[in-house]
């Protein structure tokens, strides 16, 4: 299955990259943009029979390695399209 994982900084953790992007967008004339946040986006291919089977595994991977829960939140999407 195809798994998409989104890792983003927790509220309260400052996001200088987001700030910088917002600033440059404004200087480029895109004044309509507000609070830009930047995160990581991972795509994995996972051999598994069912969602029920993969979900806990993915949560494990995220907690252990893919996200640092001190500063980051994560969510993920699973699609069968392969």
């Amino acid at each position: 299955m195809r798994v998409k994982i989104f890792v983003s900084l927790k509220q309260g953790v400052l996001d200088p990259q987001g700030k910088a992007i917002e600033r440059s967008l404004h200087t480029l004339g895109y004044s309509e943009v507000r609070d830009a946040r930047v995160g990581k986006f991972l795509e994995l291919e996972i051999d598994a029979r069912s969602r029920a089977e993969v979900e806990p595994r993915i949560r494990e991977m995220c907690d252990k390695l893919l996200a640092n829960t001190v500063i980051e939140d994560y969510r993920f999407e699973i699609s069968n399209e392969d």
Partner: protein
Amino acid sequence: MRWAVITFPGSCDDHDVFDSLKSDLGQQVKFLWHKEELKGNFDCIVLPGGFSYGDYLRCGAVARFSPIMRGVVKFAQSGGLVLGICNGFQILCESGLLPGALVRNAGLQFVCQQVYLRVEEIDTPFTGGLKKGQLLRLPVKHGEGCYYADAKTLERMHKNRQILLRYVDSKGKITATANPNGSLENIAGVCNEGRNVFGLMPHPEDACSKILGGDDGARIFMSIAAACAERARRHA
């Protein structure tokens, strides 16, 4: 006093620590390979700077799972001294041996420069040989050295006086411009509650001889050496 320096894949300053301890400070030091289990008796284990595993996911995130880290965690839990410098600091945070996390520099750029540090606490083996409020001049060189901890954690750290070093200006004042990476409260180095695990972003190993522009780094290493000698005396 027996030092050990761990080499992770992507460690860069492992030789710096090794050479400075051995040649400049005449210490007994050994390299450890990350794939091995921790064996042998050591007084202080150093996790050096560099880019373990390229720092590709998050600094220190992968190195934390190296086989040797199991032993390092046990060693720390049993009161052994662990020193994490730069990437080593990041690994210690990732593995939960130290509170908080190190994130991207506020300026978004890698910074390599000399900084002034103020010694905030001296009742630890790492700072015991220093004076409270003393200034040290050491180099920093990192892209992700901005220290962060949530309010609750920070409060605990204050209560337990775990903040050992802060970035200051040449007069010892805590200012925004003296902060090279946007760290919370100008924090440059912290220890655990047990006071036997210490992480800092600046590089003492790069400041152990006058010809390299200063030897304030040696004061930290010698402080550790003294503490260990003291321990040995007590145990004897």
